[in-house]
């Protein structure tokens, strides 16, 4: 697989997405987030700047999930319905390159969106007296990685299931992937080794989304253990690569009909 067609597809996919209305809604949302963060800091207990950052980062994650799930699910099916995919893959580009290009384009779009929202959240916190730290940047990068993995999961599922099933399954995986971290460490599970093994199995196979959640660390200014960040990013990148390879294997056999 050569890189050039991938770059071309990614470029035009991004161009198309940037001109759709979604980015404008991200700007509107970022204003909303800033307002929400400020309101939350005014009307709740706790240090205002921390509350603002907490709310802002949460909103950023949620909008990232939204883009990953709802734009990922139609990424390929829309191409087939509009028969655009036939215009593209009847040219000298492999199916794999096409798909990777589409996903790269959507990932870039996701990053741009999250960056807009992230800047809004961090600015409000800063105005309230909490300057940005390198940990906030890590939390932001982790959030992007998480959303990219979620998007890959969604695209993989969408190759085999219809739109609504794909959305439901991926949301289940998202919730489960967040819950598993705390559940595995709970006393209830630790007293039941069999259940622990089931959860471990789930963990090895399905994405452990909880790993990418750095919000608590950011808010309470905790210092992550040595090597923790590295292993988190390594896990994320390996998992994303694994999903991308799986998608390529599936796409090779698929009838585009």
């Amino acid at each position, binding site marked *: 697989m050569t890189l*050039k*067609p991938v770059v*071309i*597809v990614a470029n*035009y996919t991004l*161009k*198309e*997405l940037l*001109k*759709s209305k979604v980015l404008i809604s991200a700007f509107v949302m970022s204003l909303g987030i800033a307002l929400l963060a400020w309101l939350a800091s005014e009307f709740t207990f706790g240090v205002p700047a921390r509350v603002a950052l907490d709310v802002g980062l949460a909103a950023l994650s949620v909008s990232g999930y939204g883009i990953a799930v709802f734009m990922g699910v139609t990424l390929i099916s829309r191409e087939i319905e*509009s*028969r*655009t*995919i*036939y*215009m*593209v*893959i*009847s*040219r*000298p*580009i492999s199916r794999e390159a096409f798909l990777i290009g589409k996903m790269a384009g959507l990932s870039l779009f996701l990053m741009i969106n999250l960056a807009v929202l992230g800047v809004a959240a961090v600015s409000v916190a800063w105005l309230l007296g909490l300057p940005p730290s390198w940990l906030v940047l890590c939390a932001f990068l982790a959030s992007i990685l998480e959303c990219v993995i979620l998007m890959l999961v969604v695209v993989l599922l969408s190759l085999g299931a219809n739109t609504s099933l794909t959305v439901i399954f991926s949301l289940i995986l998202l919730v489960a992937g967040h819950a598993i971290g705390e559940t595995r460490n709970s006393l209830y599970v630790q007293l039941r080794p069999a259940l622990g093994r089931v959860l471990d199995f789930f963990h090895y196979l399905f994405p452990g989304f909880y790993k990418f959640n750095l919000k608590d660390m950011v808010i309470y200014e905790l210092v992550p253990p040595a090597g923790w960040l590295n292993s988190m990013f390594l896990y994320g990148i390996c998992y994303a690569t694994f999903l991308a390879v799986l998608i390529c294997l599936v796409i090779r056999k698929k*009838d*585009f*009909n």
Partner: protein
Amino acid sequence: MLRFENITKVFKTDILTAPVVALESVNLHIKSQSMVGFLGANGAGKTTSMKIMLDFIRADQGSVVYGAELGGNLKNALSKIGFLPERPYFYPHLKGHEFVSFMGELQGLSKTTIKERAKLWAPKLRIDHALDRYLRTYSKGMLQRLGFLTVVIHEPTLIILDEPLSGLDPVGRQELKAIMRELHASGKTVFFSSHVVPDVEEICSEVVFLSSGKLAYQGSVDKLMRENVGQTFWVKTPATDKILRTPFVAKEKLSDEIVRWEVSQQDQENLLRELLDSRIPILGMEQSRKSLEEVFYQIKGKVAL
């Protein structure tokens, strides 16, 4: 140039409905530099065949053979083929020229080459005025024209078009047919599907005809007509009560004054001699023509048996 060897494709949708046999042992052959009309009723399997040619879907049995002109295999062939799907609909938020660049870049063309070729083809396709507009504002016919532009942008050897005339108005159809003729005259091979027989009859010398997933006929239109229509002649004379000795196939009253006699080829001379001898004026004479469409109804009946 491109051949189907015993291609069979069965669609299994779900367990409850019976599988659909879309193509059954189809052997077809697109000859180099031919202009082939791909005919068949709706659901005959034309689109499915094209999808198999381009490897969008895989046949259950049989193989597609890409000739030396196409580089001998699918991978090489893709840079020498231009394909337009039926009722194409492209990225709504891209502009016309952006979509053209996208397709051209995928073919490995430089930006200047893409510009030059677009400049050459856009006016011919009457789409030059709209290249700066977003595709969401395009009509069906305009999308078809833009699609055609991207099909020829890399000067393909083989052009495959699925129902290229279906989204166009009568003028547009004539224009596109003229362009297809021109491409064919310049040495390209053109293979296009249609369920409208007269369009094909007008511009093609060769046809491939599918009927319910089976190959009913392929070859030249002339040969098909010769084999399936006994050649007859029409002779027009003033209305007369005289009973002729020459056997005729049909006698038709065109008006109160004029009748038309239809005779077989071997009786043509006898009829003319008899008319001359009887001093009946001959007002006109021509070879009778059956349309390709009538012939297809005829052979479709045979295939169904």
